[in-house]
């Protein structure tokens, strides 16, 4: 009994705790059953006809051989022992089942872990793919934007060439090759040119003598010729009617400055030839 009881002990299983009377785990119940069995089996009958206290087992053995009348006490103990043993057997079966279930649980858990890691792997891959796609889409959008921008700013090459011709031919952006200091030509409209232009003539309608030799008369008095002859370098040549400047002139009050206050005798006004004597009056 002692050997078998120790053997039983090794088969303990940490079973699920619920479902027992008193809430004990299977393990505890097994242990308590074992203890009971041990106690009961070691029950020794003090008073016997032999010299030393004998254990119940020995008593049973003896009584079976000799067919002695057993007292009620031993019967009770025996019955208890049998009962307890029965319980113990049942508990063992239970423990075995629980063990199987636990084993299955472990197998399933492993499966779950495996699937879990698969899912995580997939997730990583999806995330990478998403990032790559997002980058690609972003770059494509940028490209589209730049295409749109380029298309918006497209200017016909012929026009550019024509324009380049125009501004170079009159030496407006590149000095004439024979230019020396003292040459009155400049990269901007000079005094003379300004005064004889439309602006200059605007407020000097009757004074043809201002710039006598220059043919500004046709534009005098604000009369607009039918054909705007390109008389001065900056007067537009082929102006389309719909190319009119945005009309915000109501936003500000304005007078064309400077020209109407000029007269030839006013040396203060810029003179590109003479050394610039700064007007200290202001």
């Amino acid at each position, binding site marked *: 009994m002692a050997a078998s009881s120790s053997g039983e002990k090794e088969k303990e299983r940490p079973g699920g705790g619920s479902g027992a009377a008193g809430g004990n785990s299977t393990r505890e119940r097994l242990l308590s059953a074992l203890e009971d069995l041990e106690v009961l089996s070691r029950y020794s009958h003090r008073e016997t006809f032999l010299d030393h206290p004998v254990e119940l087992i020995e008593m049973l053995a003896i009584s079976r051989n000799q067919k002695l009348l057993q007292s009620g006490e031993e019967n009770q103990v025996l019955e208890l022992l049998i009962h307890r043993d029965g319980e113990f057997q049942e508990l063992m079966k239970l423990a075995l089942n629980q063990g199987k279930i636990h084993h299955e649980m472990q197998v399933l858990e492993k499966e779950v872990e495996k699937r879990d890691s698969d899912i995580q792997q997939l997730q990583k891959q999806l995330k990478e793919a998403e990032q790559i796609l997002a980058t690609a889409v972003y770059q494509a959008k940028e490209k589209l934007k730049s295409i749109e921008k380029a298309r918006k700013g497209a200017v016909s090459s012929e026009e550019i060439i024509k324009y380049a011709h125009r501004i170079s031919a009159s030496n407006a952006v590149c000095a004439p090759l024979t*230019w020396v200091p003292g040459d009155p030509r400049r990269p901007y409209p000079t005094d003379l040119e300004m005064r004889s232009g439309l602006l200059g003539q605007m407020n000097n309608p009757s004074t043809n003598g201002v710039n006598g030799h220059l043919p500004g008369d046709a534009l005098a008095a604000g009369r607009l010729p039918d054909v705007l002859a390109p008389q001065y370098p900056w007067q537009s040549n082929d102006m389309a009617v719909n190319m009119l400047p945005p*009309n915000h002139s109501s936003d500000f009050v304005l007078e064309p400055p400077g020209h109407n206050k000029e007269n030839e005798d006013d040396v203060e006004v810029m003179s590109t030839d003479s050394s610039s004597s700064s007007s200290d009056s202001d």
Partner: protein
Amino acid sequence: MAASVAMETDDAGNRLRFQLELEFVQCLANPNYLNFLAQRGYFKDKAFVNYLKYLLYWKEPEYAKYLKYPQCLHMLELLQYEHFRKELVNAQCAKFIDEQQILHWQHYSRKRMRLQQALAEQQQHNNASGK
């Protein structure tokens, strides 16, 4: 005056205004004229400053193609800054700008001269080595 000629429905008026503004914006390329304006206090007038801002439409390619003196656009951009307008009161400032403009104007002809010189030297060298 310019405002008074701007009649929206009048075609001739619009064309006149176009020409006037074209002329005026190109006059801005002349640093001496700018100095003149500064000294007369035009740059202090809010309406004038607004007008300068309005003139920025000449930067669009459809309008810019009428400009003979494209340097005026750069001057126009600079004129948007108050600091520049204030500085222009000085004659030295105007003179400096004038000089730089003329030097820059000569940039291409100088470059071309240098190239011609280099070419001439090379030809001389070739002739010398040939002989």
